């Protein structure tokens, strides 16, 4: 059982960070939804806010790590140009675009994924900052809590689109 360096980076980018991101989103969303004045007890509220702060920051940090590793490490061999007569299985972008039946995975899927993914960490960081800055006060301001839920979800949608296409593209033309 062997993995090349780029296979390890790809797994880290798509599976490890992806799994942590999903967990952090689920926890963060539940935390934000429950941060209502009428639902909270004095005893539990400080722990709830601490967990929410940790969850939103973990999601933001993981989102940054995912896009940075994806763009600056994994994307490099993906788009590398093959020399004349090379085996295209080692050059995923050119393997996909060489066949009209798979070209869409690059021309639509990768083009969308590589751009929209970067919206996710900006939105997640804004949410994490506001949760850290306002803490318990969010429960007193329903408008702020609702806005945080919307931005948090949009961050997840952007990452979800990127993750979904990443999985499909890796299946169609894996990096080895």
């Amino acid at each position, binding site marked *: 059982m062997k993995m090349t360096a780029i296979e390890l980076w790809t797994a880290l980018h798509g599976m490890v960070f992806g799994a942590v991101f999903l967990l952090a989103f689920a926890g963060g969303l539940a935390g934000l939804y429950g941060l209502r*004045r009428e639902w*909270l007890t*004095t005893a539990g*509220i400080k722990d709830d806010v601490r967990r929410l702060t940790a969850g939103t920051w973990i999601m933001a940090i993981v989102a940054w790590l995912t*896009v940075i590793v994806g*763009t*600056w490490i994994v*994307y*490099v061999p993906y*788009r*590398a140009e093959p020399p004349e007569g090379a085996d295209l299985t080692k050059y995923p972008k050119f393997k996909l675009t060489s066949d009209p039946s798979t070209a869409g995975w690059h*021309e*639509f899927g990768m*083009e*969308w994924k*590589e*751009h*929209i993914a*970067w*919206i996710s960490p*900006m*939105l997640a*960081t*804004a949410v994490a*900052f*506001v949760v850290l*800055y*306002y803490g*318990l*006060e969010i*429960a*007193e*301001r329903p*408008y*702020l809590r609702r*806005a945080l839920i*919307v*931005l948090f979800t*949009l961050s997840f949608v*952007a990452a979800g689109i990127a993750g979904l296409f990443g999985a499909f593209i890796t299946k169609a033309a894996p990096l080895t």
Partner: protein
Amino acid sequence: MTERAEKPNGPAAAAFVAAGIGSAALGVFTMLAETFEGVGSLMELYAPVGPLSGKTTFAMVVWLVAWGVLHAAWRNKEVSWKMVWTLTLVLVGVGFVLTFPPVFLVFAPEE
């Protein structure tokens, strides 16, 4: 729950609007790099990554500068949340739309 809301909403507004500005900037840079070859070349900060290296780097710079400026301007202020929230959603929407290939490729010159 005895704590009362005391902090102004300015810092939250600054974080939200700046995230919108960063998203929109990413969309605009993506569209410009597709439309004008010169812009595409300018965005190529690191050849192995291509124009994506510049589009994302410059969008992050715009986001951070916008956040810093807005935070400094609004940190002690209570701002209109309706205005802030509408602006944030519009800017994030621009980012989503302009990073969608069928949209930004409309501006690409025909090959």
